[in-house]
Structures are given as C-alpha cells and as structure tokens.
C-alpha cells in the first residue's frame, strides 16, 4: 500500500514534524510505502508530486491550519482521511482505523 500525507499546525514548528514522524514510523512498521509533505513555518517541505498523489492508496491530511495548494487533491477526495496532528501523535494507528470507518 502506498500512503501520502500532509501535516501542518498553527505555529509550524513542532506538531507538524512530530505528526510526520509518527506517520512515517507506523508506515515503516507496517511495511507501507509513504511520503509526508510538511507545511510548517518554512512553507512546504518535501512536496508531493502529482504522480505520487495519483498513485497513493491513501491520502492523509493531519492539519490544524488550511492545506496549502489543496487543489492538487481535488480529484482524489474519496482517498482523503482527515485527522488532527495531535491525535496522530498520540495514536498513529487512527489513520488506518479511520479508513475502516469510511468504508
């Protein structure tokens, strides 16, 4: 399974990066491919490419503040899972539980 994610938070210095770490860690543990774009205080880091977004099985938005360049995801609305950075840091597995709920 391929997973892409975007993380962001109000100050853009801590939750953004901790949520990114949490998502990468759990994907590694489960053996999923994953790439995380961080929209922190420095702007967009590790930006997702259009083909990566297209090929992903799951798109995770872990954001407190509005996603920058959200139009990239317009065509893939049904793959998007919305969580908050805080909840991902606390329990990263919610990104998979939410998937079950959506089905």
């Amino acid at each position, binding site marked *: 399974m391929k997973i892409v994610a975007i993380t962001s938070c*109000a100050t853009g210095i*801590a939750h953004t990066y901790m949520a990114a770490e949490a998502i990468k860690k759990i994907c590694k543990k489960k053996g999923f491919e994953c790439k995380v774009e961080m929209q922190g205080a420095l702007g967009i880091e590790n930006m997702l490419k259009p083909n990566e977004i297209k090929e992903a099985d799951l798109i995770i938005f872990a954001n407190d*503040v509005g996603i920058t360049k*959200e139009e990239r995801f317009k065509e893939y609305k049904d793959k998007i899972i919305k969580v908050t950075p805080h909840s991902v*840091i606390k329990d990263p597995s919610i990104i998979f539980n939410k998937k079950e709920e959506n089905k």
Partner: protein
Amino acid sequence: MKDIKNQIQEALLTGVSYMLPFVISGGILIALGFLLGGYNIPNDVAQGANFASTIFWLGKVAFGLMVPVLGAYVSYSIADKPGIAPGMVGGFMAMDPWGLDMASGFLGGLIAGIVAGYIVNLLKKIPVPSSLRSLLPTLIIPVLGVTSVGLLMHYVIGGPIAAVTGALTNFLNNMGTGNLVILGIIQGCMLAFDMGGPFNKVAYAFALAAMDTGNFMPMAANFVGSMAPPLGIAIAILLDRNKEKFTDTDRNSLPGLFAGAAAMITEFAIPFAAAHPLQVIPSLMVGSAVGCALSYIFGLTMQAPHGGIFVLFALNNALLFLVALLVGGFVTGAILFFIKKPVSETEQSLEEIVD
C-alpha cells in the same frame, strides 16, 4: 453545523499562523525601540529621526499589519486564493483607518475575514457563460468581494464589533485582582493543555488581542504559562534522583526542555504528554495556572509578543517574572514527580529495542 464550526476554527488557526511572523517581528522591534530610546520615544523624537525611533516605527509598521494579515488568511482558509484581497481589506477596515472611533482590532479582523471568506465562496457560484469564465476571478470576485466586505464593515458590522471590543477592553482593564487570578487560571490551563496546539493558540490570540488594545498583562501571563511546562518537566526529571520514574531517553531530553523553556516553545513538552497524558497534562495545567495567576498578582506586563528569556527587557519586572516562572515550574515538577508511576519493565525494554 459542525462543519462550519470546524471550518471557522481552522480559519482562525490559519489566520493566526500567518499573522505570527508580523506580530513577533513587530512586537520585538517596538520593545527594542523602547529599550534603545526610552519610554517616550514615540513622542520625544520625530519618526525615523534617530536609530531608536526608526527601529520603533519599523516595529509599528510590522505590528500594524497584524489585523489585515489575520483577515486575509482567515478568509484564505475559507475561500482559498480569491479570499485574500477582500479579507485583507476588511481587516484593514477593522483598524479604523479613517479615525471614526470604530477600531475593532483583532476581533474585527477575525470577523471581517470570516465574512469575506463566505462572501467570496458565494461569489464563486455566480453563473457566468463559459466564454466569460475568466472574468470571475480577475474582475467580478475582487471588485464585488472587496466592495461588499468594505461596505459591511463600514455600515453594518464594524460599529457593533468596535463596541464589543471596547466593552471587553474596559472590562479587562478594570478587572479586580480576584477576577484576574481566575483569568490567569483559565489562561494557564489552556496554554498547558495541548502545548502549542489549538487551545494554546486561542489563549495566545487572546493575549495578542489584549496587547493590540494596549493591555500588556495577559502577555506576561502568557509567557509564564507557555514557558512553565517544559521547565516543569525538566524539574521533575531532576527531582527523580533514583532514576525510577523517567527513562534514559527522558533524561537525554533535558537540554531540549531547558531550551524550550528559555525560548518559550511549549512544544518541547509534547513527547512526555503524548507518552503519559493522564499524569503529565494535569501537572502542566496546574503549574501553568499557578504561574499565570502569580503573574497577574504581581501585576507583570510584557511588551514583546514572543521570545522567552531573550526579551526579559520588555518586562516591567524581570525578577518577579522569574519568580512566577520558577514557582509555576516547581509546582508542575513536584506534582508530576509525585504522581508519575515508576517506569515499567516493558517500557524500559521496549526502549532498548528501539535504540
């Protein structure tokens, strides 16, 4: 309904997020101008006539953009790119540019941004023939958006919001010590609850809004409440002399915790709170609440909006500030030390595997 609530909450956080660099640079430059040129610099020296005055007024320019930028990015969060212009103009109107006694500050900018965002979203739905589609974003939305938000701010909502802001400001400025202590407790609990998350940012926005109206007490309390959590955890680790309650990884993060406390970055406390929320978060909340309450009791004021111990010069009394901070930190440290359960064997061994 819940969607709208979430959207507005996200808009507020987005607005604050984009606003912070303006506020922080502006606030610190203003404080620095006072430091260099004395407290009468705005009146004694003509604008830009000497270096201190230049620094001061440069800070004023940056700080003055706070409300327009807030309006712009609140609206951006709701309506995307076309929301920026109407939101920013609405935010500027909230600063009472024509001197009509209608200044509604932070609150006005926030409401202007929300209104602008929803108006632009409505304007996007205007049916236009496809041959004229490009007129919508280039002409129709900017003109109608700016006009309607501007007119609403001037004729309809600007006055009432200014009245509410004025009433809140008066209320805050005339609060007795007892009420200020309660305010401090609420502020401290919110600041410590999610350590830099949405609750923390709402409390911070309150302190900024108060600062905008010239009341610098909430900002001093904000400093204490934001700096106490990392400090308190560090103190709890130092109290744990038998090394029973914290792991080696915890101890290794001591320098980071002190740096977080010094630089006012509450986020350094998150890893601990995430690992043991039920023990850590209440301890942090009590410590920050005590610290904030003390800050009000001491009557501390802080003229810089961020910067931790590096902007102590902007306080009216640095010594009492350190007292409030240390007391808050020790309260957190002591509570956490007593209620924290010893490290379990599994935790210790789990950690070894990860290492």
